């Protein structure tokens, strides 16, 4: 037992005062005249001279109450060593071992393992311990075990992972384990390098009452660290070949200037190397010469020369030539030359994605034309039966069709792919022109126009449109102010059909003259072409949908994923519904048995915020997790401070309560004795 304020124990000496007064108090000097002391003289001297204590029990209660209160003020507590030695202090320990990649810096990881083993070796026979590894995710290696051998074995062969530090989930898990324990002493030991980036505040992190958190700081005297920064890719075309320009750089987290070589690898071959000189706490960037990329999914990396932390010296990414969206615009035979003028111009100015436009007459649409196209736009054109059949097959195969009905647009009823049956034109040249009254801003097509000043469809005036009898279960994405449909959608298989009831030129409306026309057309093409932004890289911890990454989407061929570590994961049957990237490197998605097909490659990189090794005060985390100030001193082997231990145990509160309770009981007993 140790006392935080031992000086208060001097107050215990005061307990003797009432006893001494009680026993040796001289009688008061008031004189009582009495007729004769004849009888009083006969009484033995000692019983006259001293008071006798008659109510020993009351005296004991009073002294005990005062002693308890004095002890409470002295703030007693048991040191960790005392607790460990105490036979009644069986402990539930949760060893939280930071396994983020920053722990691979210098000699941190052996220190961390030694600290964890030390904590396990300190267990007594009645203690139990859990071993939890954590990065941004947590992994319980062994839960509430008393066998030191098993606990030590759980630490063997463990190396830092590719994840970044996050303390919140680990502390929540520790709190969950500790709250389930019935042992009297509960403690979480957090072994980490305490990176500031890993602590997002104490939201929801709270260890159960009575549990303590002991931080064990793992630090390395050498602090310099260079980290690469994510690349920027720029696509250019040169002589019908696509070229990619890679720009990257490095960050110096150290206090002194550093120089490093940075190299670019594409397809496993070194392409270029540059020399960077980086100021302390600064960064530098470099742009490599353009590289021609002819194949899809080519692996590429930029690397810094090695330093104490290797994982943040390399950045992987995937380069592919950009694939344009091929759009086939079909007009009616004999259409005026400018009937698709605005449409063509709008399509031509798209850069991301690039749009390749081909123009055909509606009656001459061949199967080959459709096979090459991703999107077909029918602009004010009557469609013959055979063409309609081919378009139906095109849509069912995943293609997109945009039908601008206009005045002459028609569709054979047998090829039912339109969202509605076109009716007669509605003339709005008399009276006020029609305007778009309601847009479905939740639809991907109009989502980008949701914000203010991002697209003013209401300014466009419509003088004519076709009435439409909508089919069942179709979406109307835009309506005119009189409630008539302006834009409708129908899905067919994996393909999509949009039907515009007016025109895309200036014949029936002035929409083509409005600023919103070009982005509207681009959104239509992206939507119908099922365009998704290619991601050259991802970060460890991201989740990818195997269904989207498989090279043979829609087929019944079984697919597998190869991790950077060589593990083979089946994506069919019992395989994972989603795949979490847990390693740094390239993941491959292949169709099993069709190795000749080019695989889809996903580059996975470590979270570069982890490369900043600046530390957070462990006391901040302790205070957040324990819900109060008075954190414990950090240090690899330093025990928590006396204040923190005392604060965690709060013995004084119980002593004070017991003292007051005893005083209350004493009052009751004393009153009854008096009565």
């Amino acid at each position, binding site marked *: 037992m140790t006392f935080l304020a031992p000086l208060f124990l001097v107050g215990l000496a005061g307990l003797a005062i009432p006893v001494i007064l009680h026993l040796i108090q001289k*009688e008061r000097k008031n004189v009582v005249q009495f007729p004769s*002391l004849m009888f*009083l003289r006969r009484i033995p001297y000692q019983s006259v001279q001293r008071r006798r204590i008659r109510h020993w029990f009351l005296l004991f209660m009073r002294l005990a109450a005062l002693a308890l209160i004095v002890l409470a003020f002295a703030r007693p507590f048991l040191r960790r060593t005392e607790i460990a030695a105490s036979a009644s202090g069986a402990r539930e320990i949760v060893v939280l071992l930071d396994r983020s990649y920053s722990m691979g810096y210098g000699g941190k990881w052996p220190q961390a393992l030694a600290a964890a083993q030390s904590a396990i070796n300190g267990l007594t026979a009645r203690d139990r311990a859990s071993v939890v590894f954590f990065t941004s995710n947590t992994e319980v290696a062994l839960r509430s075990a008393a066998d030191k051998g098993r606990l030590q074995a759980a630490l063997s062969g463990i190396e830092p992972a590719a994840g970044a530090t996050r303390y919140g989930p680990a502390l929540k898990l520790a709190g969950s384990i500790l709250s389930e324990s019935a042992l009297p002493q509960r403690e979480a030991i957090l072994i980490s390098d305490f990176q500031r980036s890993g602590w997002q505040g104490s939201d929801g992190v709270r260890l159960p009452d009575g549990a303590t958190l002991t931080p064990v700081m793992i630090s390395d005297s050498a602090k310099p660290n260079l980290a690469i920064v994510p690349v920027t890719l720029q696509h250019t075309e040169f002589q019908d070949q696509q070229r990619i320009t890679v720009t990257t750089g490095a960050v110096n987290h150290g206090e002194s200037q550093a120089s490093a070589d940075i190299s670019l690898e594409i397809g496993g071959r070194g392409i270029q190397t540059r020399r960077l000189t980086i100021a302390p706490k600064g960064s530098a960037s470099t742009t490599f010469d353009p590289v021609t990329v002819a194949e899809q999914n080519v692996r590429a990396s930029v690397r810094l020369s090695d330093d104490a932390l290797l994982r943040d010296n390399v950045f992987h990414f995937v380069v592919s030539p950009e694939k344009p969206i091929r759009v086939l615009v079909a007009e009616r035979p004999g259409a005026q030359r400018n009937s698709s003028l605005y449409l063509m111009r709008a399509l031509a100015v798209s850069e991301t994605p690039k749009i390749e436009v081909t123009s055909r007459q509606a009656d001459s649409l061949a199967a080959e034309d459709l096979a090459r196209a991703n999107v077909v736009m029918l602009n004010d054109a009557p469609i013959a039966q055979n063409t309609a059949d081919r378009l139906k097959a095109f849509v069912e195969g995943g293609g997109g069709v945009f039908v601008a009905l206009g005045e002459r647009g028609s569709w054979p009823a047998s090829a039912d792919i339109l969202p509605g049956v076109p009716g007669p034109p509605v003339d709005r040249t008399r009276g006020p022109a029609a305007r778009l009254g309601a847009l479905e801003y939740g639809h991907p097509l109009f989502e980008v126009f949701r914000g203010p000043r991002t697209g003013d469809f209401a300014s466009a005036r419509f003088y004519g449109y076709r009435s439409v009898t909508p089919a069942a279960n179709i979406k109307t994405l835009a309506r005119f102010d009189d409630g008539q449909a302006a834009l409708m959608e129908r899905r067919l298989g994996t393909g999509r059909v949009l039907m515009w009831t007016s025109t895309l030129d200036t014949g029936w409306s002035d929409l083509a003259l409005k600023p919103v026309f070009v982005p509207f057309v681009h959104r239509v093409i992206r939507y119908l072409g099922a365009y998704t932004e290619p991601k050259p890289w991802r970060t460890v911890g991201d989740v990818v949908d195997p269904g989207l990454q498989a090279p043979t989407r829609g087929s019944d061929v079984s697919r597998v994923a190869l991790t950077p570590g060589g593990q083979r994961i089946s994506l069919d049957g019992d395989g994972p519904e989603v795949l979490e990237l847990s390693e740094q490197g390239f993941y491959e998605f292949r169709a099993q048995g069709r190795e000749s097909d080019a695989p889809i490659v996903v580059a996975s990189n470590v979270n570069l915020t982890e490369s900043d090794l600046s530390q957070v005060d462990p006391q901040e985390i302790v205070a957040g997790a324990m819900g109060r100030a008075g954190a414990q001193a950090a240090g690899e082997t330093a025990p928590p401070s006396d204040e923190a231990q005392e604060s965690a145990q709060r013995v004084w509160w119980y002593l004070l309560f017991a003292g007051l309770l005893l005083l209350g009981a004493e009052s009751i007993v004393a009153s009854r004795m008096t009565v």
Partner: protein
Amino acid sequence: MDQTAIPGARFVDPIVLARIGNLELVARAVVDGFINGIHRSPYFGASVDFAEHRGYVPGDDIRRVDWKLYARTDRYYIKEYEADSNSNFSVLLDVSKSMGFGSRGITKLDYGKMLAGCLTYLVHRQRDRVGLVAFDNQVVEFVPASAKHMDVVLHVLDRVTPSNPGNLRTPLHKVAEHFGRRGLLILISDLYEEPDEVLDAVGPLRFRGNDIAVFHLLDPAELDFSFREPSAFEDLESGEQIPIVPDALADQYKELVQAHVNALRERFSANRIDYTMLSTASPLDHALFSYLSTRERLSRVR
């Protein structure tokens, strides 16, 4: 003592009586009330006053023949005397310093004075001769017994004050020499002496044929020792002080007092001396009634 045990008795605290100031009046009031209660005079001894003559019959004591009448008449006549109602009655009142103690507004001496006054008045009404001896360690006042000394007795009672330490033996032995005739002696004292010494002090009085009654006066504080605060207790007579914690020795003290009273009662009873212990807290009329009733009852037995 339970005052309500006597129907019709006056429940007047002696403290109130003492405040009246006129001792004679106080004594009369008390005795009158008492007489009216019992309708009978108590017996106080024989008289020697002449009543009549009668003729001699054989067997009469020839010493009682009236020889002067025989000379004139030549016949033998016997002198008859009046009833034995005229006797000497003296109060021996202890006026030592210890009698000046009173914890409830009335001292033992005041109570003793009222007791002496009441009894003297009572006896005076019976035409007995009354006297008084006030003493401490010496005889302070001496009033010879006479039928005319009632006022003197009351006057002396009013005058005496406690001034000296007390002692029974010296003054009582001295007084015994002055009582030539047998009579009734009332000793009023707090008897702070050993029982044997007390008996030794009254011995000469009894040996001369006096009828002795002892009133042992004690204050309630002397009986129950109802002190609480530790104090220095000072002997009223010697001035000696002893530090006392009352709580610690009250029980032992009361046991000693009770043993003293029992010893006195036993010694006096064995020597045919009436002994009455009175607390100054008990009403005087009640105390008198109790004593006189008992004495009358015992007189019949004798």
